[in-house]
Protein backbone atom coordinates (compact mmCIF):
# COMPACT_ATOMS: atom_id res chain seq x y z
CA UNK A 1 0.00 0.00 0.00
CA UNK A 2 1.43 3.35 -0.95
CA UNK A 3 1.70 6.07 1.66
CA UNK A 4 -0.90 7.99 -0.28
CA UNK A 5 -3.46 5.21 0.04
CA UNK A 6 -2.62 4.71 3.69
CA UNK A 7 -3.32 8.38 4.34
CA UNK A 8 -6.67 8.15 2.61
CA UNK A 9 -7.62 5.02 4.54
CA UNK A 10 -6.75 6.67 7.84
CA UNK A 11 -8.80 9.71 6.83
CA UNK A 12 -11.70 7.48 5.85
CA UNK A 13 -11.79 5.71 9.21
CA UNK A 14 -11.37 9.05 10.95
CA UNK A 15 -14.39 10.45 9.11
CA UNK A 16 -16.50 7.45 10.09
CA UNK A 17 -15.48 7.84 13.73
CA UNK A 18 -16.37 11.54 13.70
CA UNK A 19 -19.84 10.71 12.42
CA UNK A 20 -20.29 7.98 15.04
CA UNK A 21 -19.03 10.36 17.69
CA UNK A 22 -21.88 12.75 16.98
CA UNK A 23 -24.37 9.94 16.61
CA UNK A 24 -23.54 8.67 20.09
CA UNK A 25 -24.25 12.13 21.49
CA UNK A 26 -27.96 11.48 20.94
CA UNK A 27 -28.29 9.79 24.32
CA UNK A 28 -26.61 10.54 27.67
CA UNK A 29 -26.05 6.79 28.04
CA UNK A 30 -23.79 6.54 25.01
CA UNK A 31 -22.45 10.09 24.92
CA UNK A 32 -19.13 9.33 26.56
CA UNK A 33 -18.48 6.71 23.90
CA UNK A 34 -18.93 9.60 21.48
CA UNK A 35 -16.06 11.47 23.11
CA UNK A 36 -13.74 8.47 22.86
CA UNK A 37 -14.64 7.96 19.26
CA UNK A 38 -13.97 11.64 18.61
CA UNK A 39 -10.56 11.35 20.25
CA UNK A 40 -9.84 8.31 18.10
CA UNK A 41 -10.93 10.15 14.98
CA UNK A 42 -8.70 13.12 15.75
CA UNK A 43 -5.74 10.86 16.51
CA UNK A 44 -6.16 9.09 13.18
CA UNK A 45 -6.51 12.42 11.39
CA UNK A 46 -3.24 13.67 12.86
CA UNK A 47 -1.50 10.35 12.27
CA UNK A 48 -2.70 10.32 8.67
CA UNK A 49 -1.52 13.86 8.05
CA UNK A 50 1.89 13.18 9.56
CA UNK A 51 2.19 10.04 7.44
CA UNK A 52 1.45 12.05 4.31
CA UNK A 53 3.86 14.79 5.29
CA UNK A 54 6.61 12.28 6.08
CA UNK A 55 6.14 10.53 2.75
CA UNK A 56 6.45 13.75 0.79
CA UNK A 57 9.54 14.86 2.66
CA UNK A 58 8.29 17.31 5.24
CA UNK A 59 10.40 19.04 7.82
CA UNK A 60 10.25 21.09 11.08
CA UNK A 61 9.10 18.10 13.11
CA UNK A 62 10.53 19.37 16.37
CA UNK A 63 8.81 22.67 15.91
CA UNK A 64 5.54 20.92 15.15
CA UNK A 65 5.94 18.78 18.24
CA UNK A 66 6.63 21.92 20.26
CA UNK A 67 3.46 23.59 18.97
CA UNK A 68 1.49 20.50 19.95
CA UNK A 69 2.99 20.49 23.43
CA UNK A 70 2.32 24.17 23.94
CA UNK A 71 -1.26 23.79 22.72
CA UNK A 72 -1.83 20.89 25.07
CA UNK A 73 -0.33 22.87 27.96
CA UNK A 74 -2.78 25.71 27.38
CA UNK A 75 -5.70 23.45 26.55
CA UNK A 76 -5.52 21.39 29.70
CA UNK A 77 -6.27 24.22 32.19
CA UNK A 78 -8.96 25.51 29.81
CA UNK A 79 -10.77 22.22 30.34
CA UNK A 80 -10.71 22.65 34.13
CA UNK A 81 -12.71 25.88 34.35
CA UNK A 82 -15.78 25.91 36.61
CA UNK A 83 -18.88 24.89 34.69
CA UNK A 84 -20.42 28.31 35.06
CA UNK A 85 -17.58 29.56 32.85
CA UNK A 86 -18.29 27.06 30.11
CA UNK A 87 -19.91 29.63 27.78
CA UNK A 88 -16.78 31.81 27.90
CA UNK A 89 -14.53 28.82 27.36
CA UNK A 90 -16.61 27.74 24.40
CA UNK A 91 -16.47 31.19 22.85
CA UNK A 92 -12.73 31.33 23.43
CA UNK A 93 -12.21 28.02 21.72
CA UNK A 94 -14.29 29.17 18.75
CA UNK A 95 -11.82 32.05 18.60
CA UNK A 96 -8.86 29.67 18.52
CA UNK A 97 -10.56 27.60 15.81
CA UNK A 98 -11.25 30.66 13.69
CA UNK A 99 -7.73 31.95 14.12
CA UNK A 100 -6.21 28.62 13.10
CA UNK A 101 -8.28 28.54 9.91
CA UNK A 102 -7.52 32.17 9.13
CA UNK A 103 -3.77 31.67 9.61
CA UNK A 104 -3.62 28.57 7.44
CA UNK A 105 -5.53 30.41 4.71
CA UNK A 106 -3.18 33.36 4.94
CA UNK A 107 -0.13 31.11 4.79
CA UNK A 108 -1.48 29.28 1.75
CA UNK A 109 -2.20 32.47 -0.14
CA UNK A 110 1.19 34.02 0.42
CA UNK A 111 2.87 30.73 -0.33
CA UNK A 112 1.19 30.41 -3.73
CA UNK A 113 1.63 34.09 -4.41
CA UNK A 114 5.33 33.88 -3.60
CA UNK A 115 5.66 30.89 -5.93
CA UNK A 116 3.73 32.75 -8.65
CA UNK A 117 1.74 29.53 -8.76
CA UNK A 118 -1.06 30.32 -11.15
CA UNK A 119 -2.47 26.79 -11.16
CA UNK A 120 -2.79 26.74 -7.38
CA UNK A 121 -4.58 30.09 -7.42
CA UNK A 122 -7.38 28.89 -9.69
CA UNK A 123 -10.60 30.86 -9.23
CA UNK A 124 -12.26 28.14 -7.15
CA UNK A 125 -9.30 28.00 -4.78
CA UNK A 126 -9.21 31.76 -4.37
CA UNK A 127 -12.94 31.84 -3.60
CA UNK A 128 -12.37 29.16 -0.96
CA UNK A 129 -9.36 31.03 0.42
CA UNK A 130 -11.32 34.25 0.73
CA UNK A 131 -14.19 32.40 2.43
CA UNK A 132 -11.74 30.71 4.77
CA UNK A 133 -10.02 33.86 5.97
CA UNK A 134 -13.25 35.86 6.07
CA UNK A 135 -15.01 33.29 8.28
CA UNK A 136 -11.86 32.45 10.21
CA UNK A 137 -10.86 35.95 11.23
CA UNK A 138 -14.44 37.08 11.75
CA UNK A 139 -14.98 34.14 14.10
CA UNK A 140 -11.72 35.01 15.84
CA UNK A 141 -12.49 38.58 16.85
CA UNK A 142 -16.22 37.93 17.24
CA UNK A 143 -15.63 35.07 19.62
CA UNK A 144 -12.99 36.92 21.63
CA UNK A 145 -15.47 39.72 22.10
CA UNK A 146 -18.29 37.31 22.96
CA UNK A 147 -16.02 35.59 25.50
CA UNK A 148 -15.16 38.99 26.95
CA UNK A 149 -18.81 39.92 27.27
CA UNK A 150 -19.60 36.61 28.94
CA UNK A 151 -16.68 36.96 31.31
CA UNK A 152 -17.83 40.53 31.98
CA UNK A 153 -14.41 41.94 31.22
CA UNK A 154 -14.46 45.60 32.19
CA UNK A 155 -13.41 47.28 28.96
CA UNK A 156 -15.94 45.40 26.87
CA UNK A 157 -19.39 46.98 26.97
CA UNK A 158 -22.03 44.59 28.30
CA UNK A 159 -25.01 46.42 26.91
CA UNK A 160 -25.64 46.31 23.18
CA UNK A 161 -23.74 49.10 21.45
CA UNK A 162 -25.68 50.76 18.67
CA UNK A 163 -25.12 53.83 16.59
CA UNK A 164 -26.89 55.48 13.67
CA UNK A 165 -26.55 53.79 10.27
CA UNK A 166 -25.00 50.73 11.94
CA UNK A 167 -26.41 48.22 9.50
CA UNK A 168 -25.78 50.44 6.50
CA UNK A 169 -22.12 50.94 7.37
CA UNK A 170 -21.70 47.23 8.11
CA UNK A 171 -23.18 46.33 4.76
CA UNK A 172 -20.98 48.87 3.01
CA UNK A 173 -17.89 47.34 4.59
CA UNK A 174 -19.11 43.91 3.61
CA UNK A 175 -19.58 45.05 0.02
CA UNK A 176 -16.03 46.40 0.08
CA UNK A 177 -14.69 43.04 1.26
CA UNK A 178 -16.67 41.28 -1.45
CA UNK A 179 -15.29 43.63 -4.09
CA UNK A 180 -11.74 42.96 -2.91
CA UNK A 181 -12.51 39.25 -3.03
CA UNK A 182 -13.79 39.44 -6.59
CA UNK A 183 -10.74 41.44 -7.66
CA UNK A 184 -8.51 38.77 -6.11
CA UNK A 185 -10.32 35.96 -7.88
CA UNK A 186 -9.85 37.72 -11.21
CA UNK A 187 -6.22 38.75 -10.68
CA UNK A 188 -4.68 36.57 -7.97
CA UNK A 189 -1.12 37.36 -9.06
CA UNK A 190 -1.46 41.10 -9.53
CA UNK A 191 1.14 43.22 -7.74
CA UNK A 192 -1.59 44.63 -5.50
CA UNK A 193 -3.01 41.21 -4.62
CA UNK A 194 -1.27 40.95 -1.23
CA UNK A 195 -2.71 44.33 -0.32
CA UNK A 196 -6.19 43.25 -1.31
CA UNK A 197 -5.71 40.07 0.70
CA UNK A 198 -4.52 42.05 3.68
CA UNK A 199 -7.48 44.36 3.28
CA UNK A 200 -9.86 41.41 3.48
CA UNK A 201 -8.12 40.20 6.64
CA UNK A 202 -8.51 43.59 8.30
CA UNK A 203 -12.13 43.88 7.23
CA UNK A 204 -12.86 40.37 8.54
CA UNK A 205 -11.31 41.18 11.89
CA UNK A 206 -13.44 44.32 12.00
CA UNK A 207 -16.62 42.41 11.10
CA UNK A 208 -16.16 40.12 14.05
CA UNK A 209 -16.19 43.13 16.35
CA UNK A 210 -18.98 44.95 14.55
CA UNK A 211 -21.27 41.93 14.54
CA UNK A 212 -20.92 41.27 18.26
CA UNK A 213 -21.02 44.74 19.85
CA UNK A 214 -24.74 45.27 19.17
CA UNK A 215 -25.62 41.93 20.77
CA UNK A 216 -26.89 41.62 24.33
CA UNK A 217 -26.45 38.85 26.86
CA UNK A 218 -29.77 37.14 26.17
CA UNK A 219 -28.82 36.65 22.52
CA UNK A 220 -25.57 34.92 23.43
CA UNK A 221 -26.88 31.37 22.99
CA UNK A 222 -27.74 32.16 19.38
CA UNK A 223 -24.54 34.05 18.70
CA UNK A 224 -22.33 31.32 20.14
CA UNK A 225 -24.12 28.79 17.94
CA UNK A 226 -23.63 30.93 14.85
CA UNK A 227 -19.93 31.36 15.62
CA UNK A 228 -19.75 27.60 16.05
CA UNK A 229 -21.14 27.17 12.54
CA UNK A 230 -18.69 29.72 11.12
CA UNK A 231 -15.71 27.95 12.68
CA UNK A 232 -16.88 24.74 11.02
CA UNK A 233 -17.45 26.38 7.67
CA UNK A 234 -13.99 27.93 7.70
CA UNK A 235 -12.59 24.40 8.11
CA UNK A 236 -14.70 23.34 5.12
CA UNK A 237 -13.25 26.17 3.06
CA UNK A 238 -9.78 25.09 4.14
CA UNK A 239 -10.66 21.60 2.91
CA UNK A 240 -11.54 23.03 -0.49
CA UNK A 241 -8.26 24.92 -0.63
CA UNK A 242 -6.17 21.92 0.36
CA UNK A 243 -8.31 19.46 -1.57
CA UNK A 244 -8.70 17.49 1.63
CA UNK A 245 -11.92 15.52 2.10
CA UNK A 246 -11.43 14.93 5.80
CA UNK A 247 -11.35 18.66 6.47
CA UNK A 248 -14.48 19.10 4.39
CA UNK A 249 -16.41 16.36 6.21
CA UNK A 250 -15.38 17.25 9.74
CA UNK A 251 -15.93 20.94 9.05
CA UNK A 252 -19.36 20.22 7.60
CA UNK A 253 -20.32 18.21 10.68
CA UNK A 254 -19.32 21.11 12.88
CA UNK A 255 -21.04 23.60 10.61
CA UNK A 256 -24.32 21.69 10.58
CA UNK A 257 -24.21 21.35 14.34
CA UNK A 258 -23.81 25.10 14.73
CA UNK A 259 -26.58 25.66 12.22
CA UNK A 260 -29.05 23.39 13.99
CA UNK A 261 -28.30 24.91 17.37
CA UNK A 262 -28.73 28.43 15.96
CA UNK A 263 -32.07 27.50 14.45
CA UNK A 264 -33.26 25.98 17.73
CA UNK A 265 -32.15 29.07 19.64
CA UNK A 266 -33.78 31.44 17.17
CA UNK A 267 -37.05 29.51 17.33
CA UNK A 268 -36.93 29.54 21.10
CA UNK A 269 -36.78 33.32 21.00
CA UNK A 270 -39.14 33.71 18.07
CA UNK A 271 -36.55 35.68 16.17
CA UNK A 272 -34.93 35.24 12.80
CA UNK A 273 -31.20 34.95 12.18
CA UNK A 274 -31.33 38.27 10.47
CA UNK A 275 -33.05 39.84 13.41
CA UNK A 276 -30.47 38.57 15.90
CA UNK A 277 -27.55 39.76 13.82
CA UNK A 278 -28.91 43.04 12.61
CA UNK A 279 -31.46 44.18 15.16
CA UNK A 280 -29.96 45.13 18.49
CA UNK A 281 -32.37 44.00 21.17
CA UNK A 282 -32.56 46.31 24.20
CA UNK A 283 -33.33 49.27 21.97
CA UNK A 284 -37.01 48.65 21.38
CA UNK A 285 -38.06 48.41 24.98
CA UNK A 286 -38.01 52.03 26.07
CA UNK A 287 -41.78 52.30 25.68
CA UNK A 288 -42.44 50.02 28.66
CA UNK A 289 -41.92 52.67 31.31
CA UNK A 290 -45.34 54.28 31.21
CA UNK A 291 -48.14 53.55 33.69
CA UNK A 292 -48.18 53.41 37.46
CA UNK A 293 -45.36 51.80 39.33
CA UNK A 294 -46.62 48.36 40.24
CA UNK A 295 -45.83 46.88 43.61
CA UNK A 296 -44.13 43.57 44.26
CA UNK A 297 -45.35 41.34 47.06
CA UNK A 298 -42.33 40.17 48.93
CA UNK A 299 -42.47 37.10 51.13
CA UNK A 300 -40.19 35.26 53.51
CA UNK A 301 -38.37 32.04 52.79
CA UNK A 302 -40.10 30.57 55.82
CA UNK A 303 -43.57 30.79 54.36
CA UNK A 304 -42.26 29.78 50.95
CA UNK A 305 -40.84 26.65 52.54
CA UNK A 306 -44.16 25.93 54.23
CA UNK A 307 -46.09 26.25 51.00
CA UNK A 308 -43.61 24.12 49.09
CA UNK A 309 -43.66 21.21 51.50
CA UNK A 310 -47.45 21.07 51.30
CA UNK A 311 -47.27 20.80 47.53
CA UNK A 312 -47.59 17.70 45.37
CA UNK A 313 -45.72 19.10 42.40
CA UNK A 314 -43.07 21.80 42.52
CA UNK A 315 -41.59 23.04 39.26
CA UNK A 316 -38.29 24.89 39.42
CA UNK A 317 -37.45 27.26 36.57
CA UNK A 318 -33.74 28.04 36.54
CA UNK A 319 -32.19 30.91 34.60
CA UNK A 320 -28.95 32.74 34.14
CA UNK A 321 -29.27 34.18 37.66
CA UNK A 322 -28.79 30.71 39.08
CA UNK A 323 -25.58 30.33 37.09
CA UNK A 324 -24.23 33.73 38.14
CA UNK A 325 -24.90 33.02 41.80
CA UNK A 326 -23.54 29.45 41.51
CA UNK A 327 -26.71 28.36 43.28
CA UNK A 328 -27.04 24.93 41.66
CA UNK A 329 -25.73 23.01 44.67
CA UNK A 330 -28.12 24.76 47.04
CA UNK A 331 -30.90 24.03 44.56
CA UNK A 332 -29.93 20.40 44.82
CA UNK A 333 -30.40 20.55 48.62
CA UNK A 334 -33.89 21.94 48.21
CA UNK A 335 -34.61 19.28 45.60
CA UNK A 336 -33.47 16.52 47.98
CA UNK A 337 -35.39 17.86 50.97
CA UNK A 338 -38.62 18.23 49.02
CA UNK A 339 -38.26 14.75 47.52
CA UNK A 340 -37.77 13.34 50.98
CA UNK A 341 -41.09 14.88 51.99
CA UNK A 342 -42.79 13.14 49.07
CA UNK A 343 -43.04 16.20 46.84
CA UNK A 344 -42.49 15.67 43.12
CA UNK A 345 -39.90 18.15 41.86
CA UNK A 346 -39.27 18.87 38.20
CA UNK A 347 -37.05 21.38 36.48
CA UNK A 348 -38.45 23.30 33.53
CA UNK A 349 -35.66 24.08 31.08
CA UNK A 350 -36.16 26.77 28.49
CA UNK A 351 -33.92 26.29 25.43
CA UNK A 352 -32.36 29.74 25.80
CA UNK A 353 -32.07 29.80 29.58
CA UNK A 354 -28.50 30.77 30.39
CA UNK A 355 -25.83 31.90 28.02
CA UNK A 356 -25.40 28.93 25.73
CA UNK A 357 -27.51 26.00 24.50
CA UNK A 358 -27.99 23.44 27.26
CA UNK A 359 -26.30 25.63 29.89
CA UNK A 360 -28.81 24.87 32.67
CA UNK A 361 -28.71 21.11 32.10
CA UNK A 362 -24.98 21.02 32.61
CA UNK A 363 -25.11 23.06 35.80
CA UNK A 364 -27.89 20.94 37.27
CA UNK A 365 -26.10 17.78 36.23
CA UNK A 366 -23.03 19.11 38.01
CA UNK A 367 -25.14 19.35 41.17
CA UNK A 368 -26.01 15.70 40.59
CA UNK A 369 -29.65 16.22 39.85
CA UNK A 370 -30.77 13.22 37.78
CA UNK A 371 -31.38 14.22 34.21
CA UNK A 372 -34.79 12.53 34.05
CA UNK A 373 -36.08 15.39 36.20
CA UNK A 374 -34.87 18.05 33.75
CA UNK A 375 -37.86 18.61 31.51
CA UNK A 376 -37.96 20.58 28.28
CA UNK A 377 -40.30 23.53 27.97
CA UNK A 378 -42.73 21.91 25.53
CA UNK A 379 -43.11 18.87 27.71
CA UNK A 380 -43.57 20.61 31.04
CA UNK A 381 -46.03 23.25 29.86
CA UNK A 382 -48.88 20.73 29.74
CA UNK A 383 -48.31 19.98 33.43
CA UNK A 384 -48.06 23.58 34.55
CA UNK A 385 -51.72 23.95 35.64
CA UNK A 386 -51.19 20.97 37.97
CA UNK A 387 -48.12 22.52 39.55
CA UNK A 388 -48.79 23.73 43.07
CA UNK A 389 -45.70 25.90 43.24
CA UNK A 390 -43.38 27.26 40.61
CA UNK A 391 -40.04 28.44 41.93
CA UNK A 392 -38.33 30.82 39.52
CA UNK A 393 -34.60 31.08 40.20
CA UNK A 394 -32.89 33.86 38.35
CA UNK A 395 -34.98 33.48 35.20
CA UNK A 396 -36.95 36.37 33.79
CA UNK A 397 -37.84 36.70 30.14
CA UNK A 398 -38.46 32.96 29.71
CA UNK A 399 -41.40 33.13 32.15
CA UNK A 400 -42.76 36.52 31.12
CA UNK A 401 -46.41 36.15 30.07
CA UNK A 402 -46.08 39.34 28.01
CA UNK A 403 -44.55 37.09 25.36
CA UNK A 404 -48.01 35.55 24.90
CA UNK A 405 -50.25 38.56 25.24
CA UNK A 406 -48.52 41.90 24.80
CA UNK A 407 -47.94 42.69 21.14
CA UNK A 408 -45.87 45.74 21.98
CA UNK A 409 -43.39 43.75 24.04
CA UNK A 410 -40.03 43.10 22.43
CA UNK A 411 -40.28 39.46 23.44
CA UNK A 412 -43.79 39.01 22.02
CA UNK A 413 -44.20 35.63 20.36
CA UNK A 414 -41.32 33.98 22.16
CA UNK A 415 -42.36 30.58 23.52
CA UNK A 416 -42.26 30.67 27.32
CA UNK A 417 -42.61 28.38 30.29
CA UNK A 418 -46.16 28.90 31.53
CA UNK A 419 -45.21 29.68 35.10
CA UNK A 420 -48.27 31.91 35.44
CA UNK A 421 -50.57 28.89 35.08
CA UNK A 422 -49.34 27.28 38.29
CA UNK A 423 -51.29 27.71 41.51
CA UNK A 424 -48.58 29.77 43.19
CA UNK A 425 -45.35 31.33 42.05
CA UNK A 426 -42.25 32.18 44.08
CA UNK A 427 -39.66 34.17 42.21
CA UNK A 428 -36.13 34.76 43.43
CA UNK A 429 -34.73 37.99 42.12
CA UNK A 430 -31.52 39.82 42.83
CA UNK A 431 -32.99 43.30 42.91
CA UNK A 432 -36.20 45.14 42.17
CA UNK A 433 -34.85 46.43 38.87
CA UNK A 434 -36.37 45.00 35.70
CA UNK A 435 -34.45 42.21 33.99
CA UNK A 436 -32.58 42.17 30.73
CA UNK A 437 -33.45 44.97 28.33
CA UNK A 438 -35.59 46.60 30.97
CA UNK A 439 -38.66 44.54 30.21
CA UNK A 440 -41.09 44.44 33.12
CA UNK A 441 -42.30 40.99 33.96
CA UNK A 442 -46.05 40.78 34.55
CA UNK A 443 -45.61 37.44 36.23
CA UNK A 444 -44.14 39.20 39.25
CA UNK A 445 -47.27 41.28 39.76
CA UNK A 446 -49.84 38.50 39.70
CA UNK A 447 -51.91 37.86 42.84
CA UNK A 448 -50.43 34.41 43.25
CA UNK A 449 -46.84 35.57 42.89
CA UNK A 450 -44.56 36.22 45.82
CA UNK A 451 -41.06 37.62 45.49
CA UNK A 452 -38.03 36.46 47.41
CA UNK A 453 -35.44 39.20 47.02
CA UNK A 454 -31.77 38.47 47.33
CA UNK A 455 -28.86 36.61 45.86
CA UNK A 456 -30.08 33.31 44.40
CA UNK A 457 -27.56 31.25 46.33
CA UNK A 458 -28.39 32.91 49.62
CA UNK A 459 -32.14 32.67 49.22
CA UNK A 460 -32.12 29.06 48.05
CA UNK A 461 -29.73 28.17 50.87
CA UNK A 462 -32.09 29.73 53.38
CA UNK A 463 -34.98 27.89 51.81
CA UNK A 464 -33.08 24.65 52.25
CA UNK A 465 -32.42 25.44 55.92
CA UNK A 466 -36.09 26.21 56.53
CA UNK A 467 -37.14 22.99 54.83
CA UNK A 468 -34.61 21.00 56.83
CA UNK A 469 -35.46 22.75 60.09
CA UNK A 470 -39.14 21.98 59.96
CA UNK A 471 -38.58 18.29 59.55
CA UNK A 472 -36.87 18.58 62.94
CA UNK A 473 -33.66 16.62 62.56
Amino acid at each position, binding site marked *: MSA*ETLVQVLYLVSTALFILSLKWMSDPETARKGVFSGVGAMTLAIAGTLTGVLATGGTHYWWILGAFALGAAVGYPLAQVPLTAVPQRTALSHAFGGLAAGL*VGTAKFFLYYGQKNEAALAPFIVVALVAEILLGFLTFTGSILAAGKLQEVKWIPQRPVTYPLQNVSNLALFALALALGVALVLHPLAPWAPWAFGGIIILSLAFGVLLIIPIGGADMPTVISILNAYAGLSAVAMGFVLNNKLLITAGALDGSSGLILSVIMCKAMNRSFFNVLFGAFGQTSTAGAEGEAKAYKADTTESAAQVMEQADLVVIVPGYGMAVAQAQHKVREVYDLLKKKGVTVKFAIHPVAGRMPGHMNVLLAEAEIPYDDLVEMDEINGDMPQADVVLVIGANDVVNPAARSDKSSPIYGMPIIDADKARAVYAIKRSKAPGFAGIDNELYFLDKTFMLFGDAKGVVGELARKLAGESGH
Partner: protein
Amino acid sequence: MLLMTLTQHAAPATGGGGHGELDVMGAVFVFMLATFIGLMVIQRVSRLLHTPLMSLTNAISAIAVVGAIIVSAGKDYPGYITMLGLVAIFCSTTNIVSGFLITDRMLKMFKKQGGGAK
Protein backbone atom coordinates in the same frame (compact mmCIF):
# COMPACT_ATOMS: atom_id res chain seq x y z
CA MET B 1 -22.70 6.32 -0.95
CA LEU B 2 -20.54 8.68 1.04
CA LEU B 3 -17.77 6.14 1.20
CA MET B 4 -17.86 5.75 -2.53
CA THR B 5 -17.56 9.44 -3.10
CA LEU B 6 -14.75 9.64 -0.62
CA THR B 7 -12.67 6.90 -2.18
CA GLN B 8 -13.42 7.52 -5.82
CA HIS B 9 -11.74 10.86 -5.77
CA ALA B 10 -8.95 9.98 -3.38
CA ALA B 11 -7.12 13.28 -3.26
CA PRO B 12 -3.48 13.34 -4.22
CA ALA B 13 -2.63 16.53 -2.39
CA THR B 14 -2.18 15.65 1.25
CA GLY B 15 1.42 16.50 1.74
CA GLY B 16 3.41 19.48 0.61
CA GLY B 17 1.89 22.37 -1.21
CA GLY B 18 1.56 20.98 -4.70
CA HIS B 19 -1.92 20.48 -6.04
CA GLY B 20 -2.80 17.52 -8.13
CA GLU B 21 -5.75 17.64 -10.41
CA LEU B 22 -8.30 19.66 -8.51
CA ASP B 23 -11.59 17.84 -8.21
CA VAL B 24 -14.05 20.63 -7.50
CA MET B 25 -17.23 18.69 -8.00
CA GLY B 26 -15.95 15.78 -5.93
CA ALA B 27 -15.21 18.16 -3.07
CA VAL B 28 -18.61 19.81 -3.33
CA PHE B 29 -20.25 16.39 -3.35
CA VAL B 30 -18.50 15.41 -0.16
CA PHE B 31 -19.46 18.70 1.42
CA MET B 32 -23.11 18.25 0.56
CA LEU B 33 -23.31 14.66 1.77
CA ALA B 34 -21.44 15.45 4.97
CA THR B 35 -23.76 18.37 5.67
CA PHE B 36 -26.82 16.16 5.25
CA ILE B 37 -25.37 13.52 7.53
CA GLY B 38 -24.45 16.18 10.04
CA LEU B 39 -27.91 17.71 10.02
CA MET B 40 -29.59 14.34 10.46
CA VAL B 41 -27.30 13.06 13.18
CA ILE B 42 -27.31 16.27 15.16
CA GLN B 43 -31.05 16.75 15.00
CA ARG B 44 -31.30 13.66 17.15
CA VAL B 45 -28.96 14.90 19.85
CA SER B 46 -30.82 15.26 23.12
CA ARG B 47 -31.38 18.86 24.21
CA LEU B 48 -29.95 17.88 27.54
CA LEU B 49 -26.58 17.57 25.88
CA HIS B 50 -26.40 20.70 23.79
CA THR B 51 -23.56 22.21 25.81
CA PRO B 52 -21.38 19.08 25.61
CA LEU B 53 -22.34 18.79 21.94
CA MET B 54 -20.97 22.24 21.33
CA SER B 55 -17.72 21.57 23.10
CA LEU B 56 -17.39 18.29 21.22
CA THR B 57 -17.89 19.97 17.85
CA ASN B 58 -15.39 22.57 19.02
CA ALA B 59 -12.85 19.83 19.31
CA ILE B 60 -13.92 18.41 15.96
CA SER B 61 -13.54 21.78 14.23
CA ALA B 62 -9.95 21.70 15.42
CA ILE B 63 -9.52 19.36 12.45
CA ALA B 64 -7.95 22.53 11.03
CA VAL B 65 -4.85 21.02 12.62
CA VAL B 66 -4.54 18.91 9.45
CA GLY B 67 -4.09 21.99 7.30
CA ALA B 68 -1.83 23.54 9.90
CA ILE B 69 0.50 20.54 9.89
CA ILE B 70 0.66 20.51 6.10
CA VAL B 71 1.59 24.18 6.06
CA SER B 72 4.14 23.90 8.87
CA ALA B 73 5.93 20.86 7.50
CA GLY B 74 6.43 22.18 4.00
CA LYS B 75 10.07 22.09 2.93
CA ASP B 76 11.63 25.26 1.51
CA TYR B 77 8.68 27.37 2.62
CA PRO B 78 9.58 30.87 3.77
CA GLY B 79 10.00 31.12 7.52
CA TYR B 80 6.93 33.24 8.13
CA ILE B 81 4.72 30.65 6.41
CA THR B 82 6.03 27.98 8.77
CA MET B 83 5.44 30.35 11.68
CA LEU B 84 1.80 30.88 10.69
CA GLY B 85 1.35 27.12 10.46
CA LEU B 86 2.89 26.53 13.87
CA VAL B 87 0.65 29.10 15.52
CA ALA B 88 -2.31 27.40 13.84
CA ILE B 89 -1.17 24.04 15.23
CA PHE B 90 -0.97 25.57 18.67
CA CYS B 91 -4.50 27.01 18.42
CA SER B 92 -6.01 23.79 17.13
CA THR B 93 -4.27 21.63 19.71
CA THR B 94 -5.62 23.86 22.45
CA ASN B 95 -9.11 23.14 21.14
CA ILE B 96 -8.53 19.44 20.73
CA VAL B 97 -7.26 18.99 24.27
CA SER B 98 -9.66 21.30 26.06
CA GLY B 99 -12.63 20.38 23.88
CA PHE B 100 -12.49 16.64 24.42
CA LEU B 101 -11.51 16.89 28.09
CA ILE B 102 -14.27 19.28 29.09
CA THR B 103 -16.87 17.37 27.09
CA ASP B 104 -16.00 14.21 28.94
CA ARG B 105 -15.94 16.05 32.24
CA MET B 106 -19.45 17.35 31.65
CA LEU B 107 -20.83 14.07 30.38
CA LYS B 108 -19.60 12.26 33.47
CA MET B 109 -21.96 14.43 35.49
CA PHE B 110 -25.14 13.41 33.72
CA LYS B 111 -26.72 10.77 35.89
CA LYS B 112 -30.05 9.05 35.82
CA GLN B 113 -32.43 8.63 38.73
CA GLY B 114 -30.78 6.27 41.21
CA GLY B 115 -27.36 7.21 39.90
CA GLY B 116 -26.82 4.05 37.86
CA ALA B 117 -25.27 5.59 34.76
CA LYS B 118 -21.56 5.77 34.27
